[in-house]
């Protein structure tokens, strides 16, 4: 059974149907990427999986549990964690406080301290600035902090919403290396990206969203060569030959 099983979910904001009957699975140890143009519904999908926007229909199971009606904090405690679009670092908190915030629902204090040290060892830039306000970090460092914060929640599945957005090529390279490394250590990843080339190169499976619907899903190598993927990004979604 898959770690995450999203089956036929729909979400609407008022009259806007942002997701229509979307299904998706992530198995243990997998990197699955979700691609699609701006406004396709990618962020909505991740927020719906987290429980931060209500479903109109459909269901979600995580780690063999039906979480369809669970609040976000319950899902996060189970290890379903989001690195949100735009990083959403808390700028009135210090770097270290941002990391601790990631672990706020955990009660195993000693393990938390050890994991924080491991994160500092991985990101020496964060360690140097641990007592500074997070607003003093560069964009790349903020993305590392956002990922570090998510790691503090002890994730089993990490969802990342356009983590490469606005980063320099060097940081994009580092970011994808990090994702692969975390995945090799056993973390399942659901990766939303605009950087399709990079995302397809690290993913085990890929899903394409167009106007709230899944239009393609499968092997990333095959998808990378599919002309319909280019079409999806040009917004010519409806013209897909069957």
């Amino acid at each position, binding site marked *: 059974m898959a770690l995450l099983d999203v089956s036929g979910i729909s979400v609407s904001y008022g009259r806007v149907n942002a997701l229509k009957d979307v299904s998706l699975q992530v198995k243990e140890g997998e990197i699955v990427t979700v691609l699609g143009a701006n406004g396709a519904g990618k962020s909505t999908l991740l927020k719906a999986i*987290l429980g931060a926007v209500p479903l109109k229909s459909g269901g979600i199971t995580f780690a063999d549990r039906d979480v369809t009606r669970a609040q976000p*904090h319950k899902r996060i405690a189970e290890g379903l964690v989001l690195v949100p679009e735009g990083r959403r670092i808390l*700028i*009135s908190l210090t770097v270290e*406080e941002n990391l601790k915030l990631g672990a706020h629902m955990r009660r195993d204090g000693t393990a938390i301290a050890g994991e924080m040290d491991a994160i500092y060892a991985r990101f020496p830039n964060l360690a140097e600035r641990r007592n500074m306000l997070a607003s003093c970090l560069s964009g790349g460092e903020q993305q590392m902090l956002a990922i570090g914060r998510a790691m503090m929640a002890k994730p089993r599945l990490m969802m990342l919403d356009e983590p490469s957005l606005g980063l320099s090529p060097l940081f994009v390279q580092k970011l994808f290396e990090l994702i692969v490394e975390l995945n090799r250590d056993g973390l399942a990843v659901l990766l939303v990206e605009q950087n399709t080339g990079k995302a397809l190169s690290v993913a085990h499976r890929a899903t394409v969203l167009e106007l709230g619907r899944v239009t393609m899903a499968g092997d990333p190598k095959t998808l990378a060569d599919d002309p319909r993927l280019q079409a999806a990004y040009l917004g010519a979604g409806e013209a897909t030959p069957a």
Partner: protein
Amino acid sequence: MRGSMLAQQIVNGLMLGAIYMLMAVAFTLAIGVLNFLNFSLPGLFMLGGMVAYGFIKFGWPTLFAFAAALAVAALVSLLVERFAYRPMQGGDPEVPLVSSLGFLVLLENLMLIYFGSDQQAFPALVPDLNLRLGGLVIGIAQLGSLALSVLLVLWLSWFLSSTSTGRCIRTVAENRDTAVLMGIDTGRLVPMLFIASALLAAVAGLLFAVNYQQVSPFMGEGVGFKGVAAMIVGGMGSIWGAVLGGLLIGLAEVLSISFIGADVVNITVYGLLLVILILRPQGLLGRPATREKL
């Protein structure tokens, strides 16, 4: 002689200021974290004094009466959260302001029906022991109240800066949507904040009753108004600003009554606040526009 008189008035001013300070901190919690100017707080201040008075008159032991007053204020605050604040989320921020004002009027009138509109004499609880330091006379009740207020605020400040729940509260203050994405259970945290601010207001009301030995259904209005003024002059959203603003207004009020005259007290106090705000529009400890609003 004059020197000791000044010192005495400073002590009295700090006492009154401590009450304004607690009110200002209560308002600051509500506005800083929930973005809500909670006008029911003066009503909860009044409940602190009036409910304790009622139960003491009823024959309850003093400490039980105090505990009951705090519990009633906390419960009423949960009702404010449920019926004035929660249903208005996502709408105009002015709507809960007005409905919380409705709660204030409701509470005042309930007390008015039950106790009448007159000032009631709150019994002297602490034996009239005084500490004499040089020419200074400090009442035990006064000293205890000051110490309690300062400890409460110090504890709150430590709690916010150093505990996990404190970090969650500061996260909600900076960005409510981010807080949800971080798995903060706002459905639990927000009522907790309503209880915390209610307790601050009700403790202030209790201290007022004990120190000035009088209560009335409308005792919250003047103090509530000064609490809001203290919060603004201190810098909205800053706890230490609220502390500074509260103590400053208490001092200014007492000193201008004893050295200038009681009839001009509002002119001098609010004149001072106006001058401060002209010189520092963001308030004494406020930072200009730091809040992230998307």
